[in-house]
């Protein structure tokens, strides 16, 4: 994939043709089938796609969280040009994870350790990566809680997760993630488990932190509205592959891949009256035996003879790529609608 259109410097994170497999009872599931992406400094990349498309697996691979029965089959992940695989790479990875790259998870209710104090859970990152003493870490943790908008932070340090609401816990997760002032924050559906009113607050906090800290952000979501509001670039995933990528506004205005078109078309809108919700017919393919050729062909109205061969991600515009033999052809008759931007 091309170096980001926004950042001219070398990419921070590069994922190179990554393949991840899961050994399940049903057979070997090909969770990621050659994912390549990169993100530069200060950039926000939205990764969208339905459940099981490989969004979270990609993030977990970067954070070293692929566990048995999953494994990384091939490919590479590089941070500032240095591989995170191999013996040296793994040691390097352990030092940058939590420090230079941090992650916020989907469910704040289960992501914090229920029996450890909030102060301990934030402080341990600082002790681990910045060599702070317990007292220093405690003071810094207090500042961090204040920075993510938690009131009475000193008192809060000695509380346990069950004394916090869902939104507050996600703020704590974010405080923990930005503790060492990372360069990249991976947010895996950070608002999915929260009330709608809280979602906006958390997204606002992320946007604000990104600005003040100059963070790069990978925002994994299935909420296209969120991507439209926050992200510079977007990568659309389907069946373990990236099938389209480009500048967020471009992708929303003129989606090239039929799947992206279908996804945008099926996003419900509040400002328009419609009789029924639109969906894409069919289901994503079985990744134990992925289809030959394009993985979307069974559901695609444009599917034809050419689609029996697997398309590769290719430039359709200087800053946009799609993996489709018939890119930018309207696949559905209904006019496209771009998702509304959150105000």
């Amino acid at each position, binding site marked *: 994939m091309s170096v980001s259109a926004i950042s001219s410097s070398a990419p921070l994170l590069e994922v190179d043709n990554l393949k991840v497999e899961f050994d399940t009872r049903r057979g070997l599931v090909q969770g990621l089938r050659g994912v390549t992406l990169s993100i530069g400094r200060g950039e926000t990349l939205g990764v969208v796609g339905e459940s099981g498309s490989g969004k979270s697996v990609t993030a*977990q691979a970067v*954070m*070293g*969280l692929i566990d048995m029965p999953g494994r990384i089959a091939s490919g590479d992940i590089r941070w500032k040009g240095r591989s995170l695989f191999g013996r040296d790479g793994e040691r390097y990875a*352990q*030092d*940058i*994870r*939590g*420090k230079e790259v*941090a*992650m916020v*998870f989907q*469910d704040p209710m*289960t*992501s*914090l*350790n*229920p*029996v*450890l104090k909030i102060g301990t859970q934030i402080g*341990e*990152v600082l002790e*681990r*990566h910045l060599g702070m003493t317990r007292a220093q870490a405690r003071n810094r943790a207090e500042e961090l809680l204040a920075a993510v908008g938690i009131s009475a932070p000193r008192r809060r340090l000695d509380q*346990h997760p*069950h004394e916090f609401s869902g939104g507050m816990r996600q703020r704590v*997760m974010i405080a*923990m993630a930005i503790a060492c002032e990372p360069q990249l924050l991976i947010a895996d559906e950070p608002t999915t488990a929260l009330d709608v009113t809280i979602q906006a607050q958390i997204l606002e906090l992320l946007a604000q932190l990104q600005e003040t800290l100059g963070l790069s952000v990978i925002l994994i979501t299935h909420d296209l509205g969120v991507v439209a509001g926050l992200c510079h670039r977007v990568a659309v995933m389907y069946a373990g592959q990236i099938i389209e990528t480009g500048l967020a506004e471009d992708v929303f205005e003129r989606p090239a891949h039929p799947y992206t078109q279908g996804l945008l078309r099926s996003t419900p809108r509040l400002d328009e009256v419609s009789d029924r919700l639109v969906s894409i017919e069919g289901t994503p393919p079985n990744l134990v035996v992925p289809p030959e050729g394009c993985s979307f062909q069974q559901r695609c109205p444009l599917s034809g003879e050419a689609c029996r061969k697997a398309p590769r991600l290719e430039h359709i515009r200087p800053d946009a790529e799609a993996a489709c033999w018939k890119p930018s052809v309207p696949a559905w008759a209904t006019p496209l609608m771009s998702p509304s931007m959150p105000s």
Partner: protein
Amino acid sequence: MGGFLLRRIGQGLLVVIGVTLIVFIATRMVGDPVRVMLPLSATDEQRAAFAQQVGLDRPMGEQFVDFVGDLARLDFGESMWQRRPALDVVLERLPNTLKLIGAGLGLAILLALPLGAIAALRPGGWIDRTTVFVGLFGLSLPQFWFGLILIVFFAVTLRWLPTSGMGGMAYYILPAVTLAMPSLARLVMLVRSSMIDELNQQYVKTARAKGLRFPRVVMVHAMRNTLVPFVTLAGWELISALAGYTVVVETVFAWPGLGLTAMQAIQKSDLFLLQAIVFTVAILIVVINVALDVVYKLIDPRIRLA
């Protein structure tokens, strides 16, 4: 916390009152205590004289008032067998039992945490399978038989360790191992399954994503959560040891503790001594339960003590 403690102590007192009633009914009203305590050859005159001497000839109501009054003064009566106050016998033997339990359960607890945790790191791996197999084996062996086998092997055949009795450190090894074995097996299985659960929790992923070193993830994050069920079972093991296992182990190893004394008191029909033992154990169990509740609160802040 203070209010909670008071309430639990109050509940404990209720339990003690219940025990008092049961002991009184079991010793005075079910069967004839005089007949039980004196040998079969005793004459009717001797029985009557004995009953009068210890007050067993008076009406039940009076006896009960006396009984409760004596208990309040910690007077459990005279041990027939030892010819001295029953409480003195109990207080002399109790420390030996506590030492044996300390050694045995201490061993079980210290081994169970690391063994269970190591097994849990690779569920289904050879260390895990060996642990489960040995654990099931340990659970299935009758304790008295295991003790005897240890004596035959280490004391009789190899002559490495004393067969029985109490003395220096060497005397502790076989009884402590015998006492520890079933508890260790149960505790290891619990730590193992609990650690497997905890290591799959989302908060462990968070801890790993923070770049924390593996030992901290296991020992601090997962282990702290495992301690909650662990303390429950360890407390149960402590109570069972006090109220039962030590009777078996002390009898096998002639360990001069409360369990062996209870056995002897039964054999010698020493009702007053037995009463004193039952009482002491009951009060200890109440105390242990209150202490456990406090420990829970320290480990798991979500537990409300109200």
